[in-house]
């Protein structure tokens, strides 16, 4: 009985600590809104750049507006690139000694990674809202009603959360802001090597296979389907498509579960033992 209450007490503190760290993230945003604005302007610029500059030369398979085709891809891309912001924050804490201070305090060992990743959900919701607004401005619409639209955003949020654990782990491993900064440009090509911006059909075979199995593609395809945007795989053609592209929602859920199963325990363990 006492063991049970002790356990419940620990859990309560872990939650409280996690919330404190999420609160920390919020007050950082309040103090430096510029950083958030910059992070939000980037996708908006992408909407304009890809939507109008490249969009004028790219035709959507099966017809349709390119900007409608593009928006789910951008949602997915931002979901993936945001990972590096988590890496950056964790690495900064590690290199500045803030992490050591946390570790020298009698707080729950899991609170720090949970707090860091939890804060990312808030950032994600805000970022998605701004992107959706930018999308609506350039003519993007969700055509299938509230249910599927909510489902799409939930998928994006889930993937962002799962990825933030990978980002957290990476930050714990590099423990250095400079290295984290250098990793940043590597994420970008990964998001490009997908169906986000152009159909994979025209790519060389090897790239096409990679692109089709890229989780970015699954997420993009899932969003296209749920938003009712062009470029979603037609049900009649699923036979000759790679499995993740043919079943994008299941594939995305699968990716999220795998990421969480790997990186939650790994991050918590690494946080606990780093520097030992």
């Amino acid at each position, binding site marked *: 009985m006492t063991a049970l209450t002790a356990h419940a007490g620990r859990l309560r503190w872990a939650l409280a600590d996690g919330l404190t760290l999420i609160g920390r993230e919020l007050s950082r945003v309040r*103090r430096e809104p510029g950083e958030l604005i910059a992070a939000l302007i980037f996708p908006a610029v992408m909407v304009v750049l890809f939507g109008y500059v490249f969009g004028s030369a790219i035709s959507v398979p099966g017809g349709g507006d390119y900007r409608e085709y593009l928006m789910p891809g951008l949602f997915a891309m931002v979901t993936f690139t945001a990972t590096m912001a988590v890496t950056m924050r964790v690495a900064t804490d590690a290199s500045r000694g803030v992490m050591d201070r946390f570790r020298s305090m009698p707080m729950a060992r899991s609170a720090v990674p949970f707090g860091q990743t939890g804060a990312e959900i808030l950032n994600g919701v805000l970022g998605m809202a701004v992107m959706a607004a930018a999308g609506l401005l350039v003519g993007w619409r969700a055509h299938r009603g509230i249910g599927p639209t909510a489902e799409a955003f939930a998928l994006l949020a889930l993937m962002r959360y799962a990825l933030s654990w990978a980002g957290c782990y990476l930050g714990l491993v590099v423990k250095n802001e400079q290295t984290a900064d250098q990793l940043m440009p590597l994420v970008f090509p990964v998001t490009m090597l997908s169906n986000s911006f152009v159909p994979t059909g025209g790519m060389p075979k090897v790239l096409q296979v990679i692109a089709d199995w890229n989780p970015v593609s699954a997420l993009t395809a899932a969003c296209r389907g749920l938003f009712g945007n062009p470029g979603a795989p037609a049900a009649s053609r699923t036979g000759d498509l790679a499995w993740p592209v043919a079943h994008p929602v299941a594939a995305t859920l699968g990716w999220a579960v795998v990421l969480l199963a790997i990186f939650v325990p790994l991050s918590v363990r690494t946080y606990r033992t780093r520097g030992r």
Partner: protein
Amino acid sequence: MTNEPIVVAEALRKRYGTTQALDGLDLAVPAGTVCGVLGPNGAGKTTAVRILATLADADSGHARIAGHDIARHPDRVRARIGLAGQHAAVDEKLTGRGNLRMFGRLHHLSGRDARRRADELLERFGLMDAADRQVSGYSGGMRRRLDLIASLILRPQVLFLDEPTTGLDPRSRGEIWDAVRDLVADGTTVLLTTQYLDEADHLADDIAVVDHGRVIATGTPDRLKASIGDRLDVVLGDPADAGAAAGVLYALAGAHPALDGARLSVPLPAGAVRLADVVRELDRAGITAADAGLRRPTLDEVFLRLTAGPAGDQAGDQAGEREKETAR
């Protein structure tokens, strides 16, 4: 039990790769005192602090803080210690007050108590004016002070300060020293590592000189100085007397004096010879001394004497860099 020193380390060993960072370190710090841990780079100071503050595990050996074993009850230890490291471990993006409140909440103070404690500390350590400014705009000294008070939120019984003033200007250093003295007056035990010997001289009740991962000398600053004896300097009125004067000094000190121009210098066992005797003996030999003085060695000289050898040279420094890298 009650008479046990509040910090006890016994035969701590820790290896990082090929570097034996700690090689049987023993330490005992009585409650309410300041222990200065001195040592060249790479001597194992930071490793020792990290282990005692539960950030790292020792390969072997034991340590207790306020009677709690660091390996078996790290949470009990963490509830009783504060740590301020070589970095200002605070969030640059938050304000000074925001940082202290966050750490207060993480120490499980209520929102109200965290706020009150933050204000109390800011007031006491002269940061109230900067309380609502972002830390990124603080000076180096202000950051360190904030870092220090962030480790004081729970009124720790033992405070670990790992090179708290490295890289600070003399004025900021003085401010940190004042803060540490204040804390000690409140009964906090402080374990301080430093490369600055004057810092240890000013603050520490006891000094432990660490080299190659073990303690090679302990004692009060005065005792350590006495252990290497005094030094007698004589400046001759006429350099031609050097030979005769050397004979006189040899007879008194039992060691051959070093000659540098008109200056003769010889080590003396502490308290063995009085200056008056020196002057009388020189006078009797018909030698005029322009100046004669007995000098206590500085802690620097003690330190150099004790740590003479490979650790003082570059190889030691490099090992130190390695140690710090792996320690993080």
